[in-house]
């Protein structure tokens, strides 16, 4: 087949196959996002021994457990804090943080802005499924206006966060957004994030079929994933209450680059300058 590339990527080489099938619900987008990450890791040629994946709590936190590499399951909202220590102590590792919208923006929101501010070399992959899936379907900072969740039985009236705008404003080195529906594009985006020497923040639009999809009557898994392209998320970001956050539609792709000095290198240089005579 001339259309097929000879560069082989078999995701099973990067998975703990004895843990599969994974615990995610049928149609959950997190598995697709994990494939995008591992594909990007494969393309960048990062050996498994040099890859360190740090996860928080939630459905997204369990994603890392299936990766056959150095993985670290931490406390709710704190994967960025743990990863900061790891990346400072072991600059030879490729540190990747997998976190969810609630984990990253609500419980760990403070850690996110300071990780962006420091610009330490790591890649933060935020899986945005608009809900706290594992803990019972509570409203999250990215839940769209009017959406039904277990804590918003009359529809969500809270303004919605644009995570990428937040990361850009806080000074992240590389900011992008992709969707699981467009897997090769998301893979390329994550690859660029891994390559960037600084803090890379990538928002992957994922789906919650069983808890968010069912509660909001969004249909079957294929219908939900197709909506990523045709209006579900633009509506999410468009129907928000606060003007400053308002956007006409959700933007996809590389949203921000900032070539500030990387914190780890700057810190080591400062220490060396102080210690050396």
């Amino acid at each position, binding site marked *: *087949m001339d259309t*097929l*590339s*000879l*560069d*082989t*990527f*078999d*995701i*099973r080489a990067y*998975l*703990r*196959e*004895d*843990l*599969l*099938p*994974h*615990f*995610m*619900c*049928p*149609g*959950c*987008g*997190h*598995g*697709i996002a994990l*494939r995008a990450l591992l594909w990007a890791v494969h393309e960048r040629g990062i050996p498994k021994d040099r890859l360190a994946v740090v996860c928080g709590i939630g459905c997204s936190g369990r994603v890392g*457990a299936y990766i*056959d590499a150095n993985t670290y399951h931490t406390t709710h909202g704190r994967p960025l804090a743990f990863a900061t220590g790891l990346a400072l102590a072991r600059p030879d590792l490729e540190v990747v943080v997998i976190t969810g919208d609630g984990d990253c923006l609500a419980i760990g929101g403070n850690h996110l802005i300071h990780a962006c501010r420091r610009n330490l070399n790591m890649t933060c992959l935020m899986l945005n499924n608009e809900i706290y*899936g*594992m*803990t*019972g379907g509570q409203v999250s900072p990215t839940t769209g206006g009017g959406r039904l969740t277990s804590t918003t039985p009359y529809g969500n009236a809270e303004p919605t966060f644009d995570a990428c705008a937040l990361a850009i404003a806080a000074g992240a080195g590389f900011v992008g957004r992709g969707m*699981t*529906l467009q*897997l*090769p594009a998301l893979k390329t985006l994550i690859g660029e994030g891994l390559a960037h020497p600084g803090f890379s923040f990538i928002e992957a639009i994922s789906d919650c*079929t069983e808890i968010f999809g069912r509660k909001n009557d969004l249909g*079957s*898994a*294929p*219908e939900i*994933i*197709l909506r990523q392209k045709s209006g579900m998320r633009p509506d999410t970001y468009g129907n928000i209450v606060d003007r400053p956050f308002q956007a006409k539609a959700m933007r996809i792709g590389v949203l921000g680059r900032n070539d500030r000095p990387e914190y780890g290198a700057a810190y080591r240089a400062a220490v060396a300058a102080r210690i050396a005579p």
Partner: protein
Amino acid sequence: MADTETSPPTNVLIVGVGGQGVIMVSKVLAALCQLHGLQVKQSEVHGMAKRGGSVFSHVRFGAQVWSPIIPHGETDILVALEWSEGLRWLDAMRRDSGTFIADTQQIVPPIAFRDRRPGARSGYAPQSPAAVLEMVGTGFALDATRVAAGLGNTRIANTVLLGALSTALPFPVEGWISVLRDFVPPHTVAVNLKAFQAGRDWVESGSRPAEEAARPAGARVAVAARGHRLEITEAWCKGCDICVKMCPERCLRLDERGLAELANPAACTGCRVCEWLCPDFAVRVLDGLGQPVA
């Protein structure tokens, strides 16, 4: 059963893992007790247990119930929707007079696989149902999940166990059925009533523990017209329908078990959209030699 105000309450402990319907079983029981004019107290622990973690629910009923918590070792009936959860709570039961009702279905948590080498032993509870039934006063170990699958919906395994529980309590069966009918979603009433009856029948027919449930089959490989192969790992497929609907050639379908299969090998072009978008890594496109393609 508590007939006078001085007699102690009856204690039922329902355990399982998140998503199985532990709370549903306890709510049906609590509603039934209220219908009979008894005091009921129910308390539960859930939340982080959503999908896979430990869940338990205490139900206490009688003429007078003060505390919602069952004192340790005073559980009259232990209902386990998952096998190892049942074993976890065995010592909460009365040693001599307790009744143990358990599903032999095993939901193996990832923590049981600390040793990642292929073929390594899992850390899941090794005790066999027969050995555990020796240890309890009255015990029933049924493969409720398989019974439920036979009725067409594995999610009603909790109702099968509710049927088994109903034989251990002195309430008339009509009451159970009317509460169950009110409690479950309208379109599932018929199948839930069937499951309830199946659980009662199982206990009354005096069945013995079911044998080990068979794991789903491994990989199924179909050769497509252009020489490549499509490998579908049935044990991993969850039937989410994404590959079927996203295939540009519409050459996949869900079979009668709800698992993906290549229905039209002649139309498959090997574009790998199915492989890319499979959230469960169940689909692989292999080249003519059986090697994965990029």
